[in-house]
């Protein structure tokens, strides 16, 4: 205990290196008594290096006082402290869920969003309750964050809820729903999206829509994606080719329209990324019955394989 007190005392040292080592030693001591002095030092500490060392030390201390302290830091006016607290909570894994579940209803919208930021990397029993509340949140940013996390974590049990939110047609929320449904949706999700879009998906939502199409579309949907290649800007080439490639992966017998040859060859020649160009080349392999494609492939394959080396 005397030794810990010495380290705690050195948190006030005028020497930056000494404060860093003090924090490190308190972390290694791994005692609950070390948590309050570390947390108390944070607002007063001007050195970024020391602040980072304090958070590293807190990560080393196993006591749950760290969790409670980090949750309190989510309310800090200091954005560094708030956001490092998110990282600290993430490092604890599922142990934080119960405390976050208690904190969520009492938190303001900014803090609720930060809690969801923690859950983006943490899974376990109890998260569903938080997500259910988040999906019904009055702040659309909280809902958007929840939708994003649910998609990434492959929480298919929330699919129906997210399909409903598509209908709200708030642009950013709709975008989040499309991205999530690309991961946890199914063919029905695509129908829901189409019924709400009424034949016209907003341009800036097209990349997300194409992800859903690629993930859940049918063989016949290749034509829809292929039809965009000539008519849309070059910035959409990557999501369009991704969608076609995914559809072909899931439906190997899907035929590629001959109208794809010219735009694909153009991308191979002058596409703006090596991956895009290779992808176009691979799709051309499905069009070898078209005139000139075999020769084109023979000329370009050696140039694009092996990172052009």
């Amino acid at each position, binding site marked *: 205990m005397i030794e810990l007190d010495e380290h705690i005392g050195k948190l006030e040292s005028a020497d930056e290196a000494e404060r860093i080592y003090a924090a490190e030693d308190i972390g290694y001591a791994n005692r609950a008594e070390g948590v309050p002095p570390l947390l108390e030092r944070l607002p007063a500490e001007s050195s970024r290096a020391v602040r980072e060392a304090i958070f590293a030390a807190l990560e080393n201390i196993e006591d749950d006082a760290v969790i409670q302290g980090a949750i309190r830091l989510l309310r800090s*006016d200091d*954005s*560094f402290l*708030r*956001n*490092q607290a*998110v*990282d600290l909570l993430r490092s604890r894994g599922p142990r934080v869920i119960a405390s976050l579940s208690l904190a969520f209803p009492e938190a303001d*919208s*900014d803090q609720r*969003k*930060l809690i969801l*930021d923690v859950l983006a990397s943490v899974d376990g029993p109890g998260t569903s309750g938080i997500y259910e509340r988040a999906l019904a949140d009055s*702040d*659309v*940013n909280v809902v*958007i*964050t929840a939708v*994003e996390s649910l998609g*990434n974590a492959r929480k298919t049990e929330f699919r129906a809820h997210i399909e409903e939110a598509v209908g709200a047609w*708030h*642009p*950013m*929320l709709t*975008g*989040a729903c499309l*991205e999530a449904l690309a991961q946890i949706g199914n063919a029905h999700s695509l129908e829901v999206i189409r019924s709400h879009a009424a034949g016209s998906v*907003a*341009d*800036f*939502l*097209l*990349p*997300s829509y194409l992800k859903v199409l690629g993930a859940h579309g049918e063989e016949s949907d290749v034509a829809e994606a292929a039809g965009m290649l000539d008519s849309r*800007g070059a*910035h959409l080439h990557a999501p369009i080719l991704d969608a076609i490639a995914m559809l072909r992966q899931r439906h190997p017998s899907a035929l590629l329209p001959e109208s794809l040859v010219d735009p694909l060859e153009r991308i191979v020649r002058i596409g703006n990324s090596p991956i895009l160009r290779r992808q176009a080349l691979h799709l051309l392999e499905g069009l070898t019955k078209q005139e000139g494609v075999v020769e084109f492939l023979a000329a370009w394959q050696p140039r694009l394989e092996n990172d052009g080396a």
Partner: protein
Amino acid sequence: MKKTVLIVDDSEFVRNYHAYILQQASFDVITAMDGSDGLEKLYTHACDLILTDINMARMDGYEFIRRVRSEPKYQELPIVIVSTESQSMDKMKGFQAGANLYLVKPCSPAMMVENLRMVMGPAPNVT
């Protein structure tokens, strides 16, 4: 010549969403996942404007903006914050750090593009 926007946000969805909006409006886009990544991207790519979130671990938006502004060559580079935090104190902090504009998420695509064009003006590429 297309203008390039550096988008800094820890959410993959938000980065992509803003990227799609800006690409649709004929901007080129570079993305970064936090302030530290943002600085590395800024120093290795030419860009005409930074669009940054505030709440990011490792390096938050205020610190990122301060470090950008500490470099003489980036004094005039337009910086727009786009954040969920909407209190006037947050906005004040943003301007004190050196931002030119503060937009609150979610911002409509049209308003975002209009605001960015307004802030960018005819400033040349910074390399």
